[in-house]
C-alpha cells in the first residue's frame, strides 16, 4: 500500500515562514488538488515533500516509511516523482534520450502506458528532435512524461498547465488519466480552476502558508474565507 | 608566556591580512556567484605596482599603496565589465576566466620583473619593546591599516545605499533585480572593491614577506581555506575564520615549526565540512 501522509509539515527560511502545520493524506490511487494564491507556499511544499528542500518541522511518510528530509534521489527511488513548474528537460539531447534517461535514472523500467502517452501528446513522431527545439507546450509535456517515465507510485505535479494554451490544457487531463490508469496517485498544484474542478474530487487550499480548507471543490470553493483569499486574484485562472 | 603573547600578536596581524583577502573573495562569491581564481594575482599585482611606484617613480610608500589599490581595482572593474559579465551565470566559465586571468597576470609579472624576488623593504623599521614582548613596527602599521580597511568595508556594506544594494544582490539576485537594482552597475563595482582589497593587502604585506612571481598561489590557497571555514559567501564568517587561520598558523609555527600549521588547518576544514558543511557562520547560499 503506497499512501502519502504529511504530518504538521513546516518550512521556514531564516525568520521567514513559508508554511506551517500542513497535514493531509493522499491514499493509494488517489487524486488531490492543491490551490492557493501566489506565494502561498505551494511549490515549496512540493520541494519539501520531494526532498529538494529540507523541512523545518513535521513528517512526510510514504507507504508507512518516514522519508522526511531524505535526499531527492532517494525519495524518487522510493516511488515519488515530481514535475517542475518551468519546462525542465535535458535541453541539448533528443526526446528519445530524455525519456531513456528518465527510465534509467528511475531504475524501475518503463511504466505501462508510456508509449500511449507519447503517442497521445504527439511526441512519438518527434523522438529524434532536440528537446530544446520543441514548441513550449510540448517541452512542458515532455517534462511531465519524464516524471511518469520513472514508473512512480505517486507524482507531484507543479502547475502542469501553466504557460499552456487553452487547447493544450486538455493534455494535462489525458496525462492524469493515463497516470491513474497505471495505478499511480497524483497530487496536482494548479492555478487553472476549471482544470482543478473537472479533475479533482478533493482539494486543499493553501493561503499564506496555512491550510485553509480541505474537501470537495464545490464545497471548498464556496467558502467565504477561500473566496476572500482569492480576492484580487480573480483574473488569474 | 611571552612567547604566547608574541604568537597571539603575530596571529592577529596575520588574521587581519587574511581577513582583507577573504572578505574580497567571499564578497565576489556572494554577490556574483564567481569563484575568483585571480585573487592571488591581484595580490601580487598590488605588490608589484607599489614596488614600481617606489623604485621607479620615487613615490613615497603610502602614495604607492594608494596607486596599487587604484590600479588593481581598475583592472578588476574592467575585467568584470568586459569579460566576466558576459558569462556571469555560468559558474564553470567564470572560474576558468579568472584562472586564465591569473595565469596571464603572473606570467606578465614574470616577464617584466623576472623570476627573482624584488628588494622591496617596508619604509618603517625597528620594533616596539613592551617589557619582554617585541613587536615589529611594520606589523603594527599593517595591522592598523588592515583593521581600518575592514572597518571601512563594513561601513560601506552596512551603512550606505550602495552596500545595501550589494547585500541585497548577494541575498537573492532575482528579488533584488525586481526591486530595481542593476547588477550591470553593481557587479563590476563589487569586483573592483574586492580586487582593490587584494591589491591593498599585496602592497602592504609583500614588503614584509616577499615579492616574486608565484607568491599568489599560497595567497589563493589561504583565501580558499578561510572562506570554506567561514562558509562560502558569508562576510562575518570570512572575517572570523581569517583570524582563526591566522592564529592557528602563528601558534603552530611558533610551537611546532614547519608546515604543521597548514596541515592542522586542512584537517580542521575537513572536519568542519563533515559536521557543519555550511561553515562557521553558515547560511545557505544559492546553489553552485
Amino acid at each position, binding site marked *: 500500500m503506497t499512501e502519502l501522509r504529511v504530518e504538521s509539515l513546516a518550512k521556514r527560511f531564516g525568520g521567514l515562514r513559508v508554511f506551517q502545520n500542513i497535514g493531509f493524506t493522499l491514499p493509494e490511487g488517489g487524486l488531490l488538488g492543491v490551490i492557493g494564491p501566489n506565494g502561498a507556499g505551494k511549490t515549496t511544499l512540493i520541494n519539501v515533500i520531494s526532498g529538494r528542500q529540507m523541512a523545518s518541522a513535521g513528517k512526510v511518510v510514504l507507504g508507512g516509511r518516514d522519508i522526511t528530509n531524505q535526499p*531527492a*534521489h532517494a525519495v524518487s527511488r522510493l516511488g515519488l516523482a515530481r514535475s517542475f513548474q518551468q519546462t525542465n528537460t535535458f535541453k541539448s539531447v533528443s526526446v528519445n534520450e530524455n525519456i531513456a534517461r528518465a527510465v534509467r535514472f528511475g531504475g524501475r523500467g518503463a511504466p505501462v502506458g508510456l508509449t500511449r502517452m507519447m503517442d497521445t501528446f504527439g511526441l512519438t513522431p518527434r523522438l529524434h528532435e532536440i528537446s530544446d527545439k520543441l514548441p513550449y507546450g510540448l517541452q512542458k509535456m515532455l517534462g511531465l512524461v519524464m516524471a511518469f517515465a520513472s514508473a512512480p507510485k505517486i507524482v507531484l505535479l507543479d502547475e502542469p498547465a501553466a504557460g499552456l494554451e487553452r487547447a493544450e490544457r486538455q493534455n494535462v487531463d489525458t496525462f492524469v488519466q493515463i497516470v491513474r490508469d497505471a495505478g499511480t496517485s497524483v497530487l496536482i498544484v494548479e492555478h487553472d480552476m476549471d482544470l482543478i474542478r473537472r479533475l479533482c474530487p478533493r482539494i486543499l487550499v493553501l493561503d499564506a502558508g496555512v491550510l485553509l480548507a480541505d474537501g470537495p471543490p464545490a464545497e471548498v470553493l464556496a467558502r467565504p474565507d477561500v473566496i476572500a483569499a482569492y480576492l484580487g486574484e480573480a483574473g488569474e485562472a | 608566556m611571552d612567547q604566547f603573547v608574541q604568537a597571539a600578536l603575530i596571529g592577529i596581524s596575520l588574521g587581519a591580512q587574511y581577513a582583507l583577502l577573504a572578505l574580497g573573495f567571499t564578497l565576489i562569491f556572494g554577490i556574483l556567484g564567481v569563484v575568483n581564481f585571480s585573487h592571488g594575482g591581484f595580490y601580487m599585482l598590488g605588490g608589484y605596482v607599489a614596488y614600481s611606484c617606489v623604485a621607479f617613480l620615487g613615490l613615497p610608500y603610502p602614495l604607492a599603496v594608494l596607486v596599487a589599490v587604484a590600479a588593481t581595482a581598475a583592472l578588476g572593474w574592467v575585467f568584470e565589465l568586459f569579460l566576466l559579465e558576459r558569462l556571469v551565470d555560468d559558474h564553470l566559465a567564470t572560474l576558468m576566466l579568472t584562472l586564465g586571468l591569473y595565469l596571464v597576470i603572473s606570467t606578465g609579472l614574470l616577464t617584466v620583473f623576472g623570476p627573482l624576488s624584488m628588494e622591496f623593504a617596508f619604509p618603517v623599521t625597528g620594533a616596539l619593546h613592551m617589557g619582554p614582548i617585541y613587536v615589529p613596527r611594520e606589523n603594527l602599521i599593517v595591522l592598523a591599516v588592515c583593521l581600518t580597511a575592514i572597518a571601512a568595508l563594513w561601513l560601506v556594506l552596512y551603512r550606505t545605499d550602495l552596500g545595501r544594494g550589494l547585500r541585497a544582490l548577494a541575498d537573492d539576485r532575482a528579488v533584488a533585480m525586481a526591486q530595481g537594482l542593476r547588477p550591470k552597475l553593481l557587479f563590476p563595482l563589487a569586483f573592483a572593491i574586492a580586487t582593490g582589497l587584494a591589491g591593498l593587502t599585496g602592497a602592504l604585506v609583500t614588503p614584509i614577506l616577499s615579492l616574486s612571481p608565484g607568491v599568489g598561489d599560497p595567497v589563493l590557497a589561504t583565501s580558499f581555506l578561510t572562506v570554506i571555514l567561514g562558509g*562560502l559567501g558569508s562576510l562575518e564568517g570570512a572575517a572570523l575564520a581569517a583570524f582563526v587561520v591566522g592564529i592557528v598558523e602563528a601558534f603552530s609555527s611558533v610551537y611546532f615549526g614547519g608546515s604543521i600549521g597548514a596541515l592542522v588547518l586542512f584537517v580542521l576544514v575537513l572536519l568542519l565540512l563533515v559536521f557543519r558543511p555550511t561553515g562557521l557562520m553558515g547560511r545557505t547560499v544559492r546553489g553552485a
Partner: protein
Amino acid sequence: MRIKLLGWTELVALLLLSSGFVVPVFTRSVLAYSVLNQAFVGVIAAESVWIMLRMNLLSFATPAFMAIGGYTVAIAGQHNITDAFLMTAAAFLVPALVAVPLGALVLRLRGTYFVLVTFVLSQIMQLLIFETPGLTGGSNGISGVAAVTLFGAELGTNRLVLEYACGLAMVATLITGVLTRYFHQHFAGIEENEILAESLGLAVWRYKALGFVVAAGVAGLAGYSLVNMLLTAHPSSFDSSTAVDFIAYTIVGGRVSILGPVLGTGALVFATNLFGTHGQYAQGLYGVLILVVVLAARGGIAGSMAALWRRVS
C-alpha cells in the same frame, strides 16, 4: 537501448596515442622522445581532469593523486617490486582508495566546495611529502627508482621507456573511455541538469564520487608514468601549480569528447617545447588560450574541429 563500451572518439584517441610505438621506428631524436614522453604523462593527467569536467566539476587535485601513484611505485621499487602489471594496478588502486573517503565527503557538498577543496588538497600533498621524509624522502625525493620489468625483462632503454609510457596512456584512455561511455547518460545528465537528474532518481553524489575515485586512479597512472620516465619521485614533479597545466590541456582541447584532452595535451606540450628554455612562460600562453576558448570557442580544439567537419560535410 544498447550501451556502447567504446565509441569512435575513443578509437581515434587510441590510434593517435599509438604513435608512441610508431615514432621510434623513424627517429631516435632525444627531443622527440622527450616531447612524446611528456605528452603521454600529460594525456593521462588531462584525462583525469576530463572525467570530472564531464560532470561540470573542475579538479585541481590531479598532482596530489599523481604523487600518491608515483610514490607508491617508487617505494615499491625500493623493495624490489617492479613488475609492470602489479605496479600499474597499485598506481591506480592506491590513489583511488585514498579518494573514496575524500570524494564521499566533499561531493555531498555543492560543486564550488569541490573546486576549492581539490585546490587545497594538492597544496597539502606537497606539505605531506615534505613532512614525511622517512617514507617519501622529503625534499630530496626518492631517486634511482628501479626500471620496470615486464615478464621479468627490464624495460630500461629510452625506446622501451617511451613505449611503456605510451602503453600506460592507452590503458588510461581505455579506463576513462569505458567509464564515461558506460555512465554516459548519468554523467551527461549531471552535467546538463543536476536537479532534474536527481529528481528522476539519480544519486548524483554517488556518480560524482565514482568519477572522482576513477579520476584519482587515472592520475595515479600519470604519476607512475612520470616517475618511470624520470626514474625519480621528487616533490617538484607533483607541484600543485601543474594542476593548472592539466586543466589547460583539457579545456583548450575541448570537453565534449575524450579527443579533447588528447589533442589539447598534444598541442600544448608541443607549443611549450617551442618556448625552449623559457618554459616558465608557457602558463601565460595557457592563460590566454583558456580565455579565448571560454569566450569564443567553447568546444575547444576537438569541438571546433567537429563543428568544422559538420559544416564541410
